[in-house]
């Protein structure tokens, strides 16, 4: 399959890395030759220099033979124009555009066919949605949803004195009293697919598959108090802040936004009359003290500078803020950060990438294709949701009899509305949905790929 990526920025590069590893024919368009050169050196792709919205450049990139165009330049208008132009030149092409301006979001969603868009992604909005979900269940570092919201993979950290510390996975049920499955563990920066005799240690980050309706029980039995956040401090007044504040205010949670730029403050105060907008530098500790950081329920750092976010989050953790969420734009897979108490880490670009990769895979193989794909364990593992169809092998056979590839784990089987956390005797039949976790070095295109 041939794909054009327009815009070699943060998301563009990440997509290039991911998609070229999966073996697609990639053409990258950008008007900055230097950036292109460095990307071309690292990955096996073709680079075209020029304005991606012009017919001439698209022609050179071979738009007529291309199946998918992904427009992720930094300007919404260019992304839209690029998709419209490409669609005009090749009516069969699929197009994905990144639209970030909140003023456009609604109208473009309503006029998707006019703009010739197959899909629209808004990284900031996705990040905000993700953060809101985390705030609803404090205690989880990350939540990914499968099977239309009925199953989740949540991330937990095993701290010293935690109930799970020094417990073997086989004994897990006696503590949590609900059916869950640990599908991946990060220890010392490395992802491990654990067996039943695996013993959890302090500092491990574990990824747990659980039905959505037992999440509360899980948290209670783990001794993590869950009360809904009532007051949240957001540092930085960018788009993510705006989206997030809007969602939080709607569900009655108090929001304080700290922003350095006065004009932005006025704008936010106008758009969010119920929020408290504070003009000042969030890295100044006395300012956060004045705003009552020590008794707020959550701190979300959303400034545009990763280093600042890290510093503010560290200060928040020293003030014993119950829940901290840190947005990182560049440093998200930095192993040094693992040791730091930064709470949940959110990376808008990773979220967008997940979405796009998912779309690409669905296009690649319409039958037996992955329904949902999530990167978990810092991108070292993937959780993939499949539909069992007529082409699937080994239907109805118990799992313990199947030869499944190493490092691949079936973590959940959905029989219609019934949900099963599988053991060796479980099996799947046609029409079921199966969630599989695998190391990221191996790409699963269809369910049959899990068998040896």
């Amino acid at each position, binding site marked *: 399959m041939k794909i054009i990526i327009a815009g070699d920025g943060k998301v563009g590069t990440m997509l290039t890395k991911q998609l070229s590893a999966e073996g697609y024919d990639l053409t990258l368009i950008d008007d900055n030759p230097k950036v292109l050169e460095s990307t071309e050196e690292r990955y096996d792709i073709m680079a075209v220099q020029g304005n991606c919205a012009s017919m001439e450049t698209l022609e050179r990139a071979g738009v007529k033979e291309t199946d998918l165009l992904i427009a992720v330049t930094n300007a919404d208008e260019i992304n839209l124009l690029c998709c419209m132009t490409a669609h005009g030149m090749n009516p069969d092409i699929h197009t994905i555009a990144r639209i970030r301006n909140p003023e456009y979001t609604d109208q473009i969603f309503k006029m998707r066919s006019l703009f010739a868009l197959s899909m629209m992604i808004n990284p900031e909005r996705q990040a905000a949605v993700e953060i809101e979900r985390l705030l609803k269940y404090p205690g989880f570092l990350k939540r990914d949803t499968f099977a239309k919201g009925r199953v989740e993979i949540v991330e937990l950290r095993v701290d010293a004195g935690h109930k799970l510390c020094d417990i073997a996975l086989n004994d897990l049920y006696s503590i949590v009293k609900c059916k869950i499955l640990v599908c991946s563990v990060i220890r010392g920066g490395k992802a491990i697919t654990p067996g039943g005799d695996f013993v959890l240690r302090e500092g491990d980050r574990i990824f747990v598959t659980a039905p959505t309706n037992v999440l509360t029980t899980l948290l209670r039995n783990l001794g993590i108090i869950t009360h809904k956040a009532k007051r949240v401090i957001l540092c930085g007044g960018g788009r993510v802040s705006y989206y997030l504040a809007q969602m939080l205010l709607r569900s009655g949670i108090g929001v304080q936004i700290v922003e350095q730029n*006065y004009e932005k403050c006025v704008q936010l*105060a*106008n758009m969010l009359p119920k929020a408290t*907008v*504070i003009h000042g530098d969030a890295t100044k500790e006395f300012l956060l003290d004045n705003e009552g950081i020590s008794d707020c329920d959550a701190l979300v750092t959303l400034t545009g500078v990763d280093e600042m976010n890290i510093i503010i989050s560290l200060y928040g953790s020293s003030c014993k803020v119950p829940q901290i969420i840190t947005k990182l734009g560049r440093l998200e897979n930095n192993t040094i950060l693992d040791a730091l108490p930064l709470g949940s880490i959110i990376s808008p670009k990773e979220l967008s990438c997940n979405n796009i990769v998912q779309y690409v895979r669905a296009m690649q193989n319409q039958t037996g294709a992955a329904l949902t794909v999530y990167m978990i364990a810092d991108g070292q593992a993937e959780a993939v949701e499949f539909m069992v169809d007529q082409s699937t092998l080994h239907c109805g056979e118990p799992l313990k009899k199947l030869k499944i590839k190493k490092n691949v784990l079936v973590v959940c089987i959905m029989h219609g509305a019934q949900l099963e956390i599988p053991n060796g005797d479980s099996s799947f039949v046609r029409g079921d949905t199966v969630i599989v976790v695998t190391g990221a070095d191996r790409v699963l295109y269809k369910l049959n790929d899990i068998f040896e």
Partner: protein
Amino acid sequence: MNYKMMGRFIGRILLVEAVFMIPSLVISLVKQENMACTGFAASIGITLALSLLLLVLCKGSKRSFKARDGLVCVGASWIVMSLLGCLPFYISREIPSYLDALFETVSGFTTTGSSILSEIEGLSMSILYWRSFTHWLGGMGVLVFVLAVGASGESSKGFTMHLLRAESPGPQVGKLVPKMKKTAEILYLIYVLLTIVNIAFLLFGGMPLFEAVCTAFGTAGTGGFGIKNDSIAGYSPYIQNVCTVFMLLFGVNFSCYYMLLLRQFYSVFKDEELRLYLGVVFGSIVLITLNLRGFYGTFEETVRHASFQVASIVTTTGYATTDFDLWPTFSKAIILGLMVIGASAGSTGGGFKCARVLIIVKGLRRNLRRAISPQKVQVVRINDNMVDEKVLENTNAYLSAYVIILFLSFIVVSLDRFSVMTSLTAVLSCFNNIGPGLEAVGPTCNFGDFSWLSKLVLIGDMLAGRLEIFPILILFSRTTWGRLKG
């Protein structure tokens, strides 16, 4: 200064004024009121001559028309209009003193309704008609009328916005539709329709046509000149209630009616100024009704008088059905408060305006909160829109100017040795274009006993109040008449 352009505008306003005197002339001819007939004929002649002179002399100007010119033009034209508008009273000898006639006319045009006459029923019909008609004309504004009927070519030039801004009441004046002429037409259309409906309701209550028309003019302009010595008190409860309702209707921002015509019911329902205005009205009615227990015979009568007086004062009309000067102090205090607040912006009413109260109160609340947490950024929002800092500033400046003028006028009027309450409410009443005050200027009394100096000051106050201070204030500023530097 663009004197030629201003001359042309004033010329056209005088032309309109002369034309509007014709119905009075007709009435005086029909009723064979000889003195009044002479008065009107002479006035029309003088006004017409002056108008044509101005139109001929001030032909074709290519210079630009600035915001300053707009303000000066409005201020000057209202003064000239009043100087000529009082001629019928003076020439017909029905008001022998020219100053008194001027006071009466300014009171009419500014929709104040303060009178120097103690005996109204003795006036001839044509004079009574003219007296009431000045209210109707002044209510919506003469310049707005000129813009509505004027050639669209001229009013399509940008500068007419300066005129609308200067003459229309309210802190934020905007057009309803892109074209100025169309905006002015819509405003007058709503105005005329409401007036006709009002006349119809009054006729239905058995009021003679002439009285109904005059009363409706006074109501529409929120003026308050009655044609009876006892204002509205002698009429039936039905007519009094009709007046209450229509006074309140004319005190509503006219853009609300336009939105109703466009079927934007929700935005009218959500309008914060309208809510404040109605809240103030109903709150005052309830409080005064409670305070007046046992004052009148029946509960119905108490509510009727309370609501009539509240409507009359808050819309700055000035009709009366009872002497509220006899009411208990608490009720009088509320009436005094209503005098200051006034009607909505963009209505025909005067006063400080609900919109400004809203802005001032919200701005004050913002500043209080800022004192508590200085780093918190807060904006003042009205109707889900941010109020510009400039508007806040202007409104605060307006409040300062308002208080200063009020106080200075009060000091000058105090020379007349009336009581403090009389002097204060006389100024308040004229400045807010209401009509009656308390004590010696109460609903049953008049302004005839003031000295010439006080009358001049009160005339100035009426004009300043109607034109929202700045167009009059700017006439006295030295920088206005100098060359605009830079």
